[in-house]
């Protein structure tokens, strides 16, 4: 599995690899909002190609008295972002430089983390991933324009989920516009983010993949992110001045309980 990463072939000192890994993980962690809310299954390794859905595709195919169907699966998406680092910079790190330029790595980390969040929320049709937004059974909830209106609407959303038997805690994921509003102060003098976390019993998270927001139960069993190869960094090739690396992961996502969340729309 791991040999696809070919790290041992790279002209990169171990200390620099450690720095690369740490920088990438630090960059991605706050951007992977979906992993903070949905169930994470894996990592199962690069060998995992598909998730077993446990069903046989309906059909009336038969041949010589044998009825046959085809097992339903969800294939994993393999995502890869290539980037280049200057070898001189990596050598400088090995010599003790504390300010090396890992900009291309950070950009690659940002891209793949955004991709994962985007696929979870908005889907990826060609991979058979519907995404959270198009799977939810509740009608979207329109948020009031000001902090008080947003708090009231989220309170209604929590009540709606509880009313359907969807237990909490409930996390809230906001896109950029709503996330900014989370710092507003209510008339009662409290910060909206704190009030929302109190109402939902969960966290207020940020995802640039959302235009509006989502109220999602974090009880478990409702949203399933299956990961084969978890986010990793590998080596492709190098020339005299640069190493070409890549960040890779394989995953798929499905919603098991469409009633476990509500879309939040900006007022």
């Amino acid at each position, binding site marked *: 599995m791991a040999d696809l990463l070919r*790290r041992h072939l790279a002209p990169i000192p171990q200390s620099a690899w450690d720095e690369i890994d740490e920088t990438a993980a630090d960059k991605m962690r706050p951007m992977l909002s979906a992993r903070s809310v949905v*169930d*994470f299954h894996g990592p199962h390794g690069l060998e995992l190609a598909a998730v077993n859905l446990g069903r046989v595709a309906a059909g009336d195919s038969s041949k010589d008295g044998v009825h046959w169907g085809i097992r339903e699966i969800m294939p994993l998406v393999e995502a890869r972002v290539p980037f280049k680092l200057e070898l001189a910079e990596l050598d400088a790190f090995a010599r003790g430089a504390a300010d090396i330029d890992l900009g291309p790595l950070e950009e690659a980390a940002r891209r793949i983390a955004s991709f994962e969040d985007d696929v979870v929320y908005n889907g990826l049709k060609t991979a058979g991933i519907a995404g959270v937004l198009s799977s939810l059974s509740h009608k979207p909830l329109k948020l009031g324009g000001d902090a008080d209106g947003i708090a009231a609407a989220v309170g209604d959303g929590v009540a709606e989920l509880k009313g359907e038997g969807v237990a909490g805690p409930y996390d809230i994921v906001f896109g950029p516009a709503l996330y900014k509003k989370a710092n507003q102060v209510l008339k009662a003098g409290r910060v909206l983010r704190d009030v929302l976390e109190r109402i939902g019993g969960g966290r207020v998270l940020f995802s640039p993949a959302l235009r509006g927001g989502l109220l999602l139960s974090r009880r478990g069993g409702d949203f399933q992110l299956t990961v084969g190869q978890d986010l*990793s960094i590998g080596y492709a090739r190098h020339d005299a001045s640069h190493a070409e690396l890549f960040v890779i992961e394989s995953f798929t996502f499905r919603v098991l309980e469409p009633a476990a969340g509500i879309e939040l729309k900006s007022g």
Partner: protein
Amino acid sequence: MEYHEPYDKLSEEAKDLHRAISSLIEELEAVNWYHQRADVTTDEQLKRILIHNRDEEVEHAAMALEWLRRRLPALDTELREILFQDGEIVHHHGEDQAGEGPGPGGLGLGSLKEEN
């Protein structure tokens, strides 16, 4: 087992955890006692009784452990990783399960979900 912090300051959850851990210790102590007695007695009937009693205590310990596993996520993780494996036990510790770890090059991000 004594409390190490003021009783009044402890949450109900911490008190229950203390009760379960104390019970687990007591059950395992009892296993040890019965086992030693069974080991030395020369009366075959008494030996069978003591072994039966020892195994009853094992069942009690297992139930207490299961209760703890359901409440301590770290215990759950460790037990899933270490128990019911073949081969060298020490090698399992801290090692990723075959095909399930980030592997070399993996960033070890995994789930970022907080426990409920």
